[in-house]
């Protein structure tokens, strides 16, 4: 369905080589944000492309890509990547579906369908995408020296 995602990943692979490097640590973590734009070609066909925006509009679809690389000579284990969601962005799912989310600012975590939101009147309801405040991934596999990976999630500008 989301045919452009592979393109994004290709773009990413090229981009993150220039991403900010943290030489002091053995792990490098980079974040990139893309926006979907509809582009109409000369023959009138519309296709979605991803571009790195400097500005966006409410309703725009964003793709967040977090890339991690073990730049050291030793394995890293128990890797956990957390992305607090910027307030103007509504969560719209991840590419792999292996994430945990929080709807209370990172206090409690779980898959979205297990979480409840406390209403002002004391009742609670099932959490929605719009309630998500944080996203995180716990990677069970040890990250070998020199290896890397990426995590992708989508958001909508509120």
């Amino acid at each position, binding site marked *: 369905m989301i045919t452009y995602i592979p393109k994004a990943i290709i773009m990413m692979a090229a981009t993150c080589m220039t*991403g*900010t490097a*943290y030489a002091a*640590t*053995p*792990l490098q*973590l*980079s*974040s*990139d*944000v893309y*926006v979907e734009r509809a582009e109409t070609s000369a023959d009138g066909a519309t296709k979605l492309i991803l571009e790195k*925006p*400097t*500005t*966006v*509009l*409410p*309703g725009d679809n*964003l793709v*967040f890509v*977090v890339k*991690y690389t073990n730049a*050291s000579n*030793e*394995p*890293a*284990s*128990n*890797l*956990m*990547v*957390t*992305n*607090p*969601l*910027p*307030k*103007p*962005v*509504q969560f719209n799912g991840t590419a792999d579906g292996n994430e945990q989310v*929080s*709807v*209370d*600012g*990172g*206090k409690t*975590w779980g898959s979205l369908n297990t979480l409840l939101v406390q209403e002002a009147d004391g009742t609670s309801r099932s959490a929605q995408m*719009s*309630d998500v*405040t*944080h996203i*995180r991934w*716990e990677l069970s596999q040890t*990250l070998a020296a020199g290896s890397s990976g990426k995590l992708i999630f989508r958001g909508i*500008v*509120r």
Partner: protein
Amino acid sequence: MQKLSAALLFGSACTALSVAQAQAAGTVAGTDISNTAEASFQVPGGSTVTIPSNTVVITVDELLDVTVTSSDPGDISTSPGATDQVLTFQITNTGNGQEAFRLTADTAVGGDDFDPTLQQIVIDSDGNGLYDPGIDTVYVAGSNDPDLAPDESISIFVITTIPADRVDTDRAEVSLLAEANTGTGAPGTSFDGLGQGGGDAVVGTTGADDDDSGFLAVQQALVTLVKSATVLDPFGGDQAVPGSTITYNLVATISGSGVLNNVIISDPIPTSTVYIPASITLETAALTDATDADAGEFDGTNINVSLGNVPAGETRTVTFEVTIE
């Protein structure tokens, strides 16, 4: 489970607890979307290291959107020659930035029966939704264009005069147009650098302009009066001879539409007849002759019956009796 505690520390330290409030208009123009990921991991030897990623900052541009809706529940009833006729509209900034809107009223919309004369456009400056002459501010295009925050609404009054030659059921359409001062156009049109917060201003789905119409309907009620007489002579016949009683029957019929206000039926007592005291009736109910709380009176010359405000389509029947001298 060292990593778990580290993660919890992240969560509570990095983000305010409340979920961002989504406005109808969306994130306010000029807001920065700032994203930073964090990672924690264990290195051989067991110590946990946490690192942040780079931070990506994107600015939210201004979306130009507006809606105009008529606030009137239906046609506003009016009458020929009436002045200061008020149509009420609500303008809402449905964009995400502070924006001023230029207003234009059109009284010459086609397809209706007549064109009222525009007196002025008035801004509901005291915010009570009601036209307050002398209190609310007269709109001057380009001078006091309503400047609205995202999601803010304001009432606008379009004040018109009805031509004197209009008749019952004539209807006029009056439209009010609001246009974003920054610019209008096809959705997606961008005005570079003109957005709130220094970004671009981009025309939204409304085209950054909108209009709606209110309607004025002339309601003109007319009264017709039909008088008839019944004679009863002293001998049980119907001859008009001295001593005969004449019962006059006055039927007022209100036609057209609307309400006719303060209708009074007045009829002089004919010469050579004498009014029979306390003989006035309205809708078969007896009325007194005195000038008092009830609707009827006899002033020595005329009978007068006050019908008050009578809706079109209704009738009122008044009777009184005289004796032939």
